[in-house]
């Protein structure tokens, strides 16, 4: 078991290029891909975006896809990136191998849903369209279009840290000998849905974003797909996965803590796992979105981890825009390109230092990057950090506790309105004012299961859902259509991401440990429980809360929902 996890191939599409070479050239030329929208259809034409310079039809053509039903941009972008990654790794035939495709996305197939939602309501005879909020579908489509039909698919929905968490899961599966070959990353197109969502949060800059600049006024949304091929001990490695960690800020759904605690914990733990000191990091690709909140908080976290010795640091979101769920893999590929070509990408748009804050690099060349850190932080304070190494690190050895020692300490299922009344034992009406029924059911099941197990705060939180926040997502989509993208409710958007539940439980229990959300249809719960057991067996947690939830939300019929929380622990020998 164990061994060194290497990256043997990578593929990328984003605003600055449709493949590795184009992306590298644009980074070298310091050329941003952010500009007016061309492919996305929205009334907010004053908002600059970072689009991939291809239409969905052009991407379908490149993949040789013909289809009578609409195809999601998420799926075709993803498939093109996977194909490029497999080609570079020299993998043509995966026969006989245990292959896993792990993708991070939150938009999923929403781009198709939002285009055909109204049409489908009035024409029920139209061919089936994926109005389901199921992110896992896009990963299955990527597998099919990229010629990996037999791969096991897994989708991670932790908002803007999804793709980095996907790479971490891939590395874990290889180390635990659960797969022979993993293709991991993320795919996120622009959608009217999340453009409007971010707009309600008032964090979209009308100018090009300026990460870590004192005049920064928000982020630019971008789209991107990037995947890496992960193998154990590959003979032709481009880079190695050296250390990683996922931690939770547990502060607020949409705001970051002033001291950047979640980011600090993730970076510190990733360094510990890599077995290196902060002074050995040669470049940091920051999360650096350009919002006042993120950059201030990440700045503080950098100062806490690196003191006065901050290595060259930049945010490449000034080139690509914020590719949200795909950001982690888009930026991992950029880090490896920098490593291979001995340069540090410049942070574009920066000119005014934040008083007392960190200063991003304007780029440098002819440098030897031995260790590179890549940060990705998501809604709800889902903070992840990955360390890549140029040379093969020494293989670590982890001892797994026997599987029979994992025990179920308690379980609680909540599925009706009468049960929900008990939530007032735990939360005041003021605290529950923004929560929908599914959120209330999840929190109540979590509180009850924790109480039964005699635990105040779990060490880790893992959620599983097929459709996510289906009611709230549908209501926000209805709101977008009915109000023509104006006067939308931020409350609906911030509560509509799949990871809002795991974050809410973390915030309420103060759990700053590992936090993840899986969404892969009926297999979602399998992935969650698998992960819980592994954390316990590796000794990374002593108690894990697993919350499995879903709902059916036909607009005019009964609303059915169910939330089940279970506490897993490791028993003594």
């Amino acid at each position: 078991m164990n061994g060194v996890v290497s990256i043997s191939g990578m593929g990328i599409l984003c605003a600055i290029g449709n493949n590795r070479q184009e992306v590298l050239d644009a980074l070298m030329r310091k050329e941003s891909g952010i500009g007016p929208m061309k492919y996305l259809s929205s009334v907010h034409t004053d908002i600059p975006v970072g689009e991939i310079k291809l239409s969905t039809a052009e991407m379908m053509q490149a993949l040789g896809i013909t289809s009578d039903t609409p195809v999601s941009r998420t799926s075709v972008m993803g498939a093109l990136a996977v194909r490029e990654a497999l080609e570079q790794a020299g993998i043509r035939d995966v026969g006989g191998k245990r292959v896993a495709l792990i993708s991070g996305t939150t938009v999923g197939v929403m781009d198709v849903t939002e285009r055909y939602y109204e049409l489908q309501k009035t024409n029920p005879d139209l061919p089936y369209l994926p109005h389901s909020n199921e992110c896992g579908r896009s990963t299955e489509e990527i597998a099919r279009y990229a010629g990996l039909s037999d791969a096991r698919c897994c989708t991670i929905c932790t908002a803007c840290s999804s793709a980095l968490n996907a790479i971490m899961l891939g590395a874990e599966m290889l180390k635990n000998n659960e797969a022979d070959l993993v293709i991991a990353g993320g795919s996120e197109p622009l959608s009217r849905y999340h453009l409007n969502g971010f707009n309600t949060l008032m964090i979209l800059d009308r100018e090009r974003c300026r990460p870590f600049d004192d005049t920064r006024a928000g982020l630019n949304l971008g789209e991107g797909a990037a995947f890496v091929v992960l193998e154990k001990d590959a003979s032709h490695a481009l880079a190695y996965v050296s250390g990683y960690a996922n931690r939770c800020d547990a502060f607020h759904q949409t705001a970051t803590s002033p001291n950047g605690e979640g980011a600090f914990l993730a970076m510190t733990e990733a360094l510990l796992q890599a077995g290196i000191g902060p002074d050995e990091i040669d470049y940091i690709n920051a999360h650096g979105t350009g919002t006042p909140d993120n950059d201030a908080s990440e700045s503080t976290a950098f100062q806490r981890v690196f003191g006065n010795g901050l290595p060259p640091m930049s945010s490449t979101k000034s080139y690509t825009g914020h590719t949200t769920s795909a950001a982690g893999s888009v930026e991992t590929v950029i880090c490896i390109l920098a490593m291979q070509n001995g340069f540090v990408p410049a942070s574009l748009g920066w000119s005014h230092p934040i008083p007392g804050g960190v200063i991003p690099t304007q780029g440098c060349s002819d440098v030897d990057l031995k260790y590179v850190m890549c940060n990705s932080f998501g809604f709800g304070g889902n903070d992840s950090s990955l360390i890549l190494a140029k040379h093969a690190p020494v293989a670590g050895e982890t001892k797994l506790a026997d599987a029979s020692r994992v025990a179920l300490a308690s379980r609680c299922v909540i599925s009706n309105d009468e049960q929900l009344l008990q939530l007032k034992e735990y939360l005041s009406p003021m605290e529950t004012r923004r929560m929908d029924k599914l959120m209330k059911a999840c929190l109540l099941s979590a509180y009850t299961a924790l109480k039964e197990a005699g635990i105040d705060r779990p060490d880790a939180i893992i959620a599983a859902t097929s459709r996510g926040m289906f009611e709230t997502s549908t209501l926000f989509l209805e709101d977008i259509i009915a109000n023509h993208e104006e006067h939308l409710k931020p409350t609906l958007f911030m509560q509509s991401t799949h990871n809002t539940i795991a974050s809410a439980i973390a915030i309420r229990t103060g759990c700053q440990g590992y936090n993840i959300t899986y969404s892969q249809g009926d297999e979602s719960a399998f992935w969650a429980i698998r992960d819980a057991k592994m954390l316990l067996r590796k000794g990374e947690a002593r108690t894990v809360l697993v919350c499995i939830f879903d709902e059916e939300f036909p607009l005019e019929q009964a609303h059915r929902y169910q939330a089940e929380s279970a506490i897993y622990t490791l028993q003594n020998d």
Partner: protein
Amino acid sequence: MEELIEKLKLQIIDALNLEGMTPDDIDNDAPLFGEGMGLDSIDALELIVVLDKNYGIKLKSPAEGQTVFKSINCIADYIQKNRTK
């Protein structure tokens, strides 16, 4: 002014989902954020939508909202001076 305040309070109760609250429960001079009613940054965004949708007032950023949203009286005063509908 009193009519405006009453209407505004109802709009706020609705937008912020303040279940079980009536206009009389909200003190016109009490701070809405922090130690007062305990509203947070998401509530501030919802209040910005209330002003835009009902009074045609467009605030550019949540920071601008901070000075306007001090109390009900403060918001009502701002509406009277700046409303476009």
